[in-house]
């Protein structure tokens, strides 16, 4: 016949339990990503340590002071700082439930990221054409590995963000896409922090 009060309560209770479970899982996935970011910090710390130890070993080749062109690097820095801000605005629009603006800010973020990667490739090509290749000296090996690893991270972020934009256009804002956008933006802010240190340790200290 009809359900008893207990059955209704237990069903309702079960569903709430289920919701809480999903809710916890989304939270756990975000925490899991924070732990990944810490492990990525260790990768970059090792590369930074390598660079700092090898930066004076130029083997008679060009030093950072001769190679680095600050206008390009400064432009890269401002592009990435601005993209970190626009990805923050994307998360804000997501929480307001505005899909169109969310996708719009993600597009702006990705375009700024593209400018960053373009400038970096341009810098690398110029350096290599001047004979400053990765095998030339310990300094250049460490430089290309450190800066290149960061560049690869940014490039991966661009593909990732593009994929999420398609998912947002198709499924809108729900628990899953929300978590995906949040995590992609965490990754993006993290890359911005790493770049600030690259800018400081590699370029500013390099031209001193």
């Amino acid at each position, binding site marked *: 016949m009809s359900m008893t009060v207990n059955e209704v309560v237990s069903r309702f209770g079960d569903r709430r339990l289920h919701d809480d479970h999903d809710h916890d899982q989304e939270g756990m996935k975000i925490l899991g990503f924070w732990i990944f970011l810490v492990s990525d910090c260790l990768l970059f*710390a090792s590369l930074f340590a390598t660079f700092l130890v090898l930066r004076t070993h130029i083997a008679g080749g060009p030093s950072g002071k001769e190679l680095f062109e600050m206008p390009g690097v400064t432009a890269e820095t401002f592009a990435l700082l601005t993209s970190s801000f626009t990805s923050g605005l994307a998360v*804000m629009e997501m929480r307001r439930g505005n899909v169109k603006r969310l996708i719009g800010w993600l597009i702006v973020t990705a375009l700024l990221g593209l400018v960053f990667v373009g400038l970096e490739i341009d810098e690398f090509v110029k350096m290599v054409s001047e004979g400053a290749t990765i095998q030339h000296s310990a300094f250049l090996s460490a430089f290309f590995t450190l800066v290149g690893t960061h560049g690869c991270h940014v490039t991966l972020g661009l593909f990732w963000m593009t994929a999420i934009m398609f998912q947002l256009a198709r499924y809108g804002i729900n628990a899953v896409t929300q978590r995906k956008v949040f995590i992609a933006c965490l990754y993006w802010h993290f890359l911005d922090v790493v770049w600030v240190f690259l800018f400081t340790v590699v370029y500013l200290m390099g*031209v001193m």
Partner: protein
Amino acid sequence: MAGGHKHAAQANHHESPKMYINGYILSLVLTVAAFWLVLAHVMSTTPLVITILALATLQIFVQLFFFMHVKEGEGPNYHGMALILGAIFIITIVFGSIWIMSFNAQVQ
């Protein structure tokens, strides 16, 4: 159904662009300050390096608190614990490497 999950990744506080704009301005100021200090040569090398590294470290906190919502989430502060553990490892790797290699240079 989706509506019930809407709070998955969000806290209860009111969202305004003001916090993001403040964070952005702060990050620009810190970067320009580091850039200017290096170009203007107002200090000798060692204090200059320490100052620009301090400015870069402040940038971490700007990103963490203004953009990355590090204080969000319920329960124990596992994000914070992971970050502190990471910071200890990073400091050990970077400063340990510099220190041990400077010792090597002295021996030679």
